């Protein structure tokens, strides 16, 4: 019963993720693409819940759907895209690009299927994911202290860079 329900959730979420992702890259209007990308990101947050990563699910909704997507929609409204929506949506090399990407997909799928049994290696190291937020906090502030500080510096540089790039006169 439990595994049947888990499988059902996984397949429903996967169908939503892949369907919304395909709609994201095929819509002519950029605003429609952004809305479908929001649907993809929320489905991925559901998948994180399914994987017992509750903190990441919350971060995904707050940061991606609440922050990054608002930034995207803001720029789409700021940049006048009405003429762009009437032109052709795909560039001239789309057929070659599609073939190359499909070859990549077939290759990845083939190797995942061939190597699926290899995922049984060293099942677990005896850890646990139980108090999820607490464990991530311990990892971030103790084991990954230096990368955490570098990430804060990266965000500072990104804020300054975005402001300087979008400014009219420097």
């Amino acid at each position, binding site marked *: 019963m439990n595994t049947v329900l888990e*499988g059902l959730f996984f397949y429903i979420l996967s169908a939503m993720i892949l369907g919304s992702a395909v709609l994201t*890259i095929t819509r002519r209007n950029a605003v429609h693409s952004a809305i479908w990308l929001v649907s993809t990101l929320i489905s991925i947050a559901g998948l994180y819940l399914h994987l017992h990563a509750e903190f990441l699910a919350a971060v995904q909704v707050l940061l991606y759907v609440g922050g990054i997507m608002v930034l995207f929609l803001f720029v789409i409204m700021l940049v006048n895209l009405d003429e762009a929506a009437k032109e052709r949506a795909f560039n001239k090399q789309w057929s070659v690009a599609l073939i190359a990407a499909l070859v990549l997909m077939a290759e990845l799928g083939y190797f995942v299927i061939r190597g699926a049994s290899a995922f049984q290696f060293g099942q677990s190291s005896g850890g646990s994911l139980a108090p999820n937020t607490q464990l991530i906090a311990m990892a971030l502030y103790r084991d990954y202290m230096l990368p955490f500080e570098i*990430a804060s510096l*990266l965000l500072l540089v990104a804020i300054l860079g975005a402001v300087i*790039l979008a400014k009219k006169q420097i």
Partner: protein
Amino acid sequence: MTEITTAHYVFLSAALFSIGVIGVLTRRNVVIILMSIELILNAVNINLVAFSKHFLSVNGQAFAVFVIVDAAAEAAVGLGIIIALFRNKETVNADEIDLMKW
């Protein structure tokens, strides 16, 4: 229905990655190319979290947090570049931006 293994998640992640690659290579609109990059980064995150559950170790989720931070920084700088580009060239189509091509 069979049990959901780590291989299922890796397969889903590979499919999402390929969809993102198709978006980057075929679309003309620069904003949608940036959205496809977000799809690729999310495919990476699914992989990290799936293996974090596989090994019962929280390190994968900590790395996923760093990937999300990178995605936010990349989106902010990328959209700033798009605004500067639209101000100078009045276009957001990737194949019309060929100043460095000869």
